[in-house]
């Protein structure tokens, strides 16, 4: 097996089991995103792979080499931290060059310039890191972690401390930088958009377990459980009979239909549902409707609806079938 192989990994903090028998394989050049709420164990898994947390059970291998007795600094892995953890006593250049100390000076200088170019900070080398903005700081952190050419880069929510616009911009920078350098990476985030934008495969974690690990489109179209579907934004979950009455898909016994964000379409020939509330979200109007079974479902409309009810139909392409939890 080439690349990273994690089998049965368990990380524990005292009584708390943070990572509960997780398996994970990452091929060379692949980017895997780990998605989960806070406390789901995704960061602990990352720290376990890095060697910063001891594994209570399980195994971490790179190619065929077992890393159990390999110290953190000898694993050849890099990590990018949520708050950068830049060294304030060094310049931008000093930070980026920190991991290159075994290289001759000429090589170091070239490599530092090259990476500052990659992250769009060419010419910033002499600045003090305390003078940088949050976004610039994270770009330096990225350049620093890429500089020693880690065989695996671990990114621990690197953008979550930044505001939304900057985050959306930097996801692009990050993705380009990772692909341009051909870096194998594991990217931990609680932001689904980031994960789907960057990753070749996305893993969903909850309570220390890996619920599903698939390419983004497979994950989105075929969530394996109701928990995964709910985490991705499918809601509410309705019985098959109701789904069919609203024009949605039929299901087998023991299954429910999850309504996706674009699952309810306005249709004059559809069923009339009472409007509970309407609100704006980024230029669209979200209309909360009362379903016959009492649950709330949300339809997207270009503008506010002036009636007390709305005729809708379910779009089978916007719904998923999942087993009852």
């Amino acid at each position, binding site marked *: 097996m080439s690349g990273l192989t994690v089998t049965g990994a368990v990380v524990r903090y005292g009584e708390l089991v943070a990572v509960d028998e997780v398996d994970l394989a990452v091929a060379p050049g692949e980017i895997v995103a780990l998605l989960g709420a806070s406390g789901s164990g995704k960061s602990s898994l990352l720290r376990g792979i890095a060697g*910063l947390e001891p594994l209570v059970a399980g195994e971490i291998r790179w190619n065929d080499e077992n890393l159990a007795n390999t110290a953190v600094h000898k694993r050849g892995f890099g*990590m990018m*931290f949520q708050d950068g953890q830049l060294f304030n006593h060094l310049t931008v250049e000093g930070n980026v060059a920190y991991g290159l100390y075994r290289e001759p000076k000429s090589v170091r200088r070239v490599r530092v310039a090259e990476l500052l170019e990659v992250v769009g900070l060419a010419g910033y080398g002499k600045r003090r890191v305390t003078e940088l903005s949050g976004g610039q700081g994270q770009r330096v952190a990225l350049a620093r972690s890429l500089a020693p050419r880690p065989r695996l880069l671990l990114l621990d929510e690197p953008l979550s401390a930044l505001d939304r616009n900057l985050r959306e911009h930097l996801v692009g920078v990050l993705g380009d930088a990772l692909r341009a350098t051909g870096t194998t990476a594991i990217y931990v985030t609680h932001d689904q958009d980031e994960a789907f934008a960057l990753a070749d495969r996305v893993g969903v974690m909850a309570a220390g377990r890996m619920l599903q690990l698939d390419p983004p489109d497979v994950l989105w179209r075929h969530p394996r459980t109701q928990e995964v579907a709910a985490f991705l934004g499918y809601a509410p979950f309705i019985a098959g009979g109701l789904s069919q009455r609203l024009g949605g898909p039929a299901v087998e016994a023991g299954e429910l239909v999850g309504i996706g964000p674009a699952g309810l379409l306005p249709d004059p020939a559809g069923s009339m549902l009472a409007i509970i509330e309407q609100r704006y979200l980024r230029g669209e109007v979200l209309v909360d409707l009362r379903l016959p079974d009492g649950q709330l479902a949300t339809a997207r409309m270009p503008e506010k609806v002036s009636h007390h009810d709305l005729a809708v139909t379910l779009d089978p392409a916007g719904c998923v079938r999942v087993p009852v939890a």
Partner: protein
Amino acid sequence: MLAVLIPIGFLSIFFAWPVAGLVGRGFVVDGAFSLDGVRDVLSASRTWRIIGQTLGQAVVGTAVAVLLGIPGAYLLYRCRFPGRGLLRAIVSVPFVLPTVVVGVAFRSLFTAQGPLGWLGLDESFAAIVVALVFFNYSVIVRTVGALWSRLDPRAAEAATSLGASPLRVFLTVTLPAIAPAVLSGASLVFLFCASAFGIVMVMGGVRFGTIETEIWYQTTQLLDLPAAAALSIVQLVVVVTALLIAGRARARAEHALRLRGDDTAERPWQARRDWAPTAITAALIVLLLGVPMVNLVLRSFATADGWGWRNYELLSTDGAGSLAVPVWTAAVNSLVIASQASLIAVLLGVLVSLVASRRPRRPSLAAGVRLLDGVFMLPLGVSAVTVGFGFLITLNRPPFDLRTSPILIPIAQAIVALPLVVRTLLPVLRAIDPRQREAAAMLGSGPGRVLATIDAALALRGLGLAVGFAFATSLGEFGATSFLSRPDHPTLPVVIFRLIGRPGTDNFGMALAASVILAVLTAAVMAAAELVRPKEAEL
């Protein structure tokens, strides 16, 4: 591992063993265990008068320092105004002044011929308390101010918006919030007051003794070692009790504080709002801090026939037979000894701080680190006199016959300076986010390189100040040194004390001049330390 063993070994030999030997001496009479020695001392009415004197002086001194220090902390740390940095520097000078110098400065103020001689306070309780407040004022200002400057102002704003008057806001919101700092500052000041030696020796004469001076008196004048040992035990009990009570009170007062990382909690000075603390602090700086220092310098130039350098010229003589060596020789001794002591204290302090700043995952190791931290603070509580006396009675025979060795004084001074060094370095090292070390490790650095490029690089910033504190402390150290120094090889504080105890205006004049020299040396050391220290904003 070595980082743990070296300091522990050093402290065992040069601190634990002498103190233990001392305690043992109190309980052993004619080779058998006995409580007689202690009982004799405790049944003497003189002892109880001295204990009462010690506690009374410490309680009053602490109370006054706290009452005056809180407005000072407000003005110098919560308000922003031009010249604040200079004022902060001026206020912090007395704490690093050698206690003997403080004693001489106030003595020359209150003595019958002094400018305040008409108050009749020479060798009085009040004069000693004033000198103690002078010495400890900055401790309260600094500990309380450091917390206050980062206290989130919005809680007080919320109280004001609910209709509370400024006084009510202070009493119900601000004071409870700064209580931990007030208590921790107060317990430190109490400790310093209760173990004050140099100030009391110079100012108290025979009438006002404390436990510390009594130990010295019993040892060097009456040669009653068991009595001195018993008194040392009493002092140990007083100190430990004070520390325990303070620790309990602090634990109760410490609740989750909302602090700001930066100093945005400061606000510009406003005459209408801030006049009261400003008036108190200004009066205090001029009267309590300014007058004694200016008076000391002026009087050092006063001679029988007008102003002149005569007192300074006399420093190269033996004071008409009062001294075994000229004062300048003693000054050189002091500098040499202080260099050796600082070297020892800083080396040990760096090792201890590195170990104590670790946060091991294993509970047993974590407990070990906490213990180490506490053990190295002990010399702060156990008085310098106890250390000096302990050396005197334990290190004078094999296996450590160092009685005549010139290294004994630097070692004793290093023990006294060690807690200050650790207290300066430790916060800097503790402030390092452990993930900084993780980040370095993730970039391929082994433990050695992490230590060199992260811990050491950042600790260097505190090192200048630590060296300064160590040097200033040993330069002015009097308690332990007064037991250990030989007449032909005295330090500057010892010489000053000897001069002030001799009759004659020349001797008094020389004491003043020597005090000025010692104060200038100390101030120069601290100024140099401040210069090499980066601005606090970068820490």
